[in-house]
């Protein structure tokens, strides 16, 4: 497998993930505006929100109930996952190319990424 082929797989994976994320956020957005379009909004003071918008399980549960905010957060989570998926795909791609140096390089990046994501929760 050459670089160009690998790049095409990466590109397609990324595009599918991004489109799906956008579709979910859009659906949540439409639902929200249908229900609340004339509400007054400001967001001047910060309030951290409940687990429904802050934790993985809460977001999934809320989205499953077709709650508009839950759907939006689910789409955003999917978007946040796309760069991680790119690094994972790069590790696999370099491995197939038997490019051991860059397997190690990509694994280091993946390790740091995983560490900081785990550290958060």
């Amino acid at each position: 497998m050459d670089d160009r082929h690998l790049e095409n797989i990466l590109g397609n994976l990324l595009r599918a993930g991004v489109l799906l994320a956008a579709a979910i956020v859009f659906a949540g957005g439409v639902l929200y505006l249908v229900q609340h379009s004339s509400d007054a909004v400001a967001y001047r003071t910060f309030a951290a929100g409940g687990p429904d918008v802050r934790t993985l399980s809460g977001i999934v549960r809320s989205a499953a109930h077709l709650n508009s905010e839950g759907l939006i957060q689910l789409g955003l989570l999917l978007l946040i996952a796309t760069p991680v998926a790119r690094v994972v795909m790069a590790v696999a791609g370099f491995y197939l190319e038997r490019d051991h140096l860059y397997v190690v390089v990509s694994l280091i990046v993946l390790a740091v990424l995983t560490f900081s994501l785990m550290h958060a929760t």
Partner: protein
Amino acid sequence: MTALTFTLVVWAMSTIAGFLGALTGLGGGVVVVPVLALALGVDIKYAIGASLVSVIATSSGAAAAYVKEGFSNIRIGMLLEIATTIGAVIGAYVAAYTSTHAIAIIFGLVLVQSAYQSLMGGNAEGEAIVKSDALATRLRLGSDYPLDGKRQDYGVVNVPTGFGLMFGAGALSGLLGIGSGAVKVIAMDRAMRIPFKVSTTTSNFMIGVTAAASAGVYLSRGYIEPRVTMPVMLGVLGGAFLGTKVLMRARVRTLRIVFGTVILLLAVEMILNGVMGRV
């Protein structure tokens, strides 16, 4: 302001942010934070959360098209990403013990200088292809990219300097909490002599990975407010897609002028933040 008006205004501004972010490799945060925080009076924590999502949206949205076109260089991106992430961790640690006002002002002045070079410097196309030096050859960093319907080979030089600057870029983003796209593009373009379109698109690849690393913290702290971030994400994605289409055909000179103008604005933002003690 009603929810509908807010959504439409933020969506429109975010489209511009995504367009500029994809074109310059800087991400959309340069536009998103001031628009939300200063123009619309949204709490800075929500603005920062939305900005983080906008960086990932610019990166993933634009890079999908770039990677297919063979502009960005995954080897360079991965290698330099190590330096950036280590720098970011150290920067965030040091930030607790140091005054960031002075750093913001100094960084702003450095950006003014870079903006000047981008706007004034260089010949018509400003692209000099170099041959890879010994280290870059060993690391297989050279590649090719589309130019005038053909594929143009390019080399890479000064890898240690580039690596060092990337470390600095990461440290700055950790210290100041800003996207480090500007330093990334400058390091690849100026120090490593990588073609400008490859530099900006590879920066786009990298900023998404860097931003994803801090997304978990932002989400669990509640900075990512769904109703604020929804129009940002959709606008930035659309803008980034449009920016990608333009970048592929744009002249390098034009791109350098856009880049120079945007980092000049970023410089002013940094210096003002430093002087007014907002960082």
